[in-house]
């Protein structure tokens, strides 16, 4: 099972965790947020993609879809259960950002493609 990992970074330095193959969707299996920083942080997962031309939108614009967020206090670890993740599908690019940079707050995502 593939894994993507990053430290918490602000949205201006948003991290691309996974680029989803064109013929698949990404489904998260687990998310662990280990916050050893001095303050709590809110972690966001976002799906970025550009839709294909369609009947109603012949020239589509890029989309940024907020998919999940969790707030983790200082010196705490949050482990998000699979049943809360399995309905979250990512179509284009899985990206991660936080409310502020924190090198000691590590986000680890396990995922698979369907």
């Amino acid at each position, binding site marked *: 099972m593939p894994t993507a990992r990053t430290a918490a970074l602000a949205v201006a330095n948003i991290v691309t965790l996974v680029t989803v193959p*064109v*013929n*698949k*969707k990404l489904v998260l299996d687990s998310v662990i947020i280990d916050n050893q920083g001095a303050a709590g942080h809110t972690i966001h997962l976002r799906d970025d*993609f*550009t*839709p*294909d*031309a*369609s*009947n*109603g*939108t012949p020239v*589509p614009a890029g*989309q940024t*879809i907020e998919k999940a967020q969790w707030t983790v206090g200082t010196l705490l670890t949050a482990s998000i259960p699979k049943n809360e993740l399995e309905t979250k*599908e990512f*179509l*284009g690019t899985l990206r991660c950002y936080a409310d502020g940079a924190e090198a000691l707050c590590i986000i680890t995502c396990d995922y698979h493609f*369907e």
Partner: protein
Amino acid sequence: MISQLSPLFSKVSTFVRPEDFLLQKGQWVKFSSAWQGNFPENLPGGSFIVKEEPVLVKYDISRIIPGNDFVDIDLSNQTMPTAAGVGGTQQLYPSQPGVLYQIVLGFKKGNYFIPFYIPGGSPIFTLSSSFLTSPNFAAADGRRYLGSKTYRDSPEDTPLISLYTIQNMPSIVLRYYADIGINFEKIVVTYNVNKCKISPIQLSPEQEERALKIPYYTEFVNF
């Protein structure tokens, strides 16, 4: 041009697998007499044998589209796309005579439905009443989904819908329609193309009964 096995086949706990329904070397096919058009003279009503081992080629066509919107996927060779894959049609027909493509469709799970059109603009799976001659995508009732297929009809791991294509056939158009109530959907259909070289063969009436019948799209409508 189209056949669909009963979904029960995907649940049969015997040694039969969906792969067993792919055409193999030595099998016979018989085109109905309705195959009228720019085809070889011996095609309408003709019987053919798969003369060599077929070759299976898998090809995915995916689109990300907004909810309650659609894109038409034309499987013919009518218009070549650009080198970047922009525009044009999908090029899934044979480009030479004597070749039959059996295309087995595998739909990935998602919130979408797919009406079929042959040629483009003419729906195939409709009824005779003037109320139900075409799906009505603006309707709030079942007419919206009239004749459409979903991933349950031909799942990716047990595909049950087959298309049969030859050179110069009219366009088969699959309308990838993302359902209402969702933001965006990535619709992915796997086209498992079983490439068969075929040659004419004379069959007895009993042998013709055992050949795979390939109807023309005109036999699906007007009744």
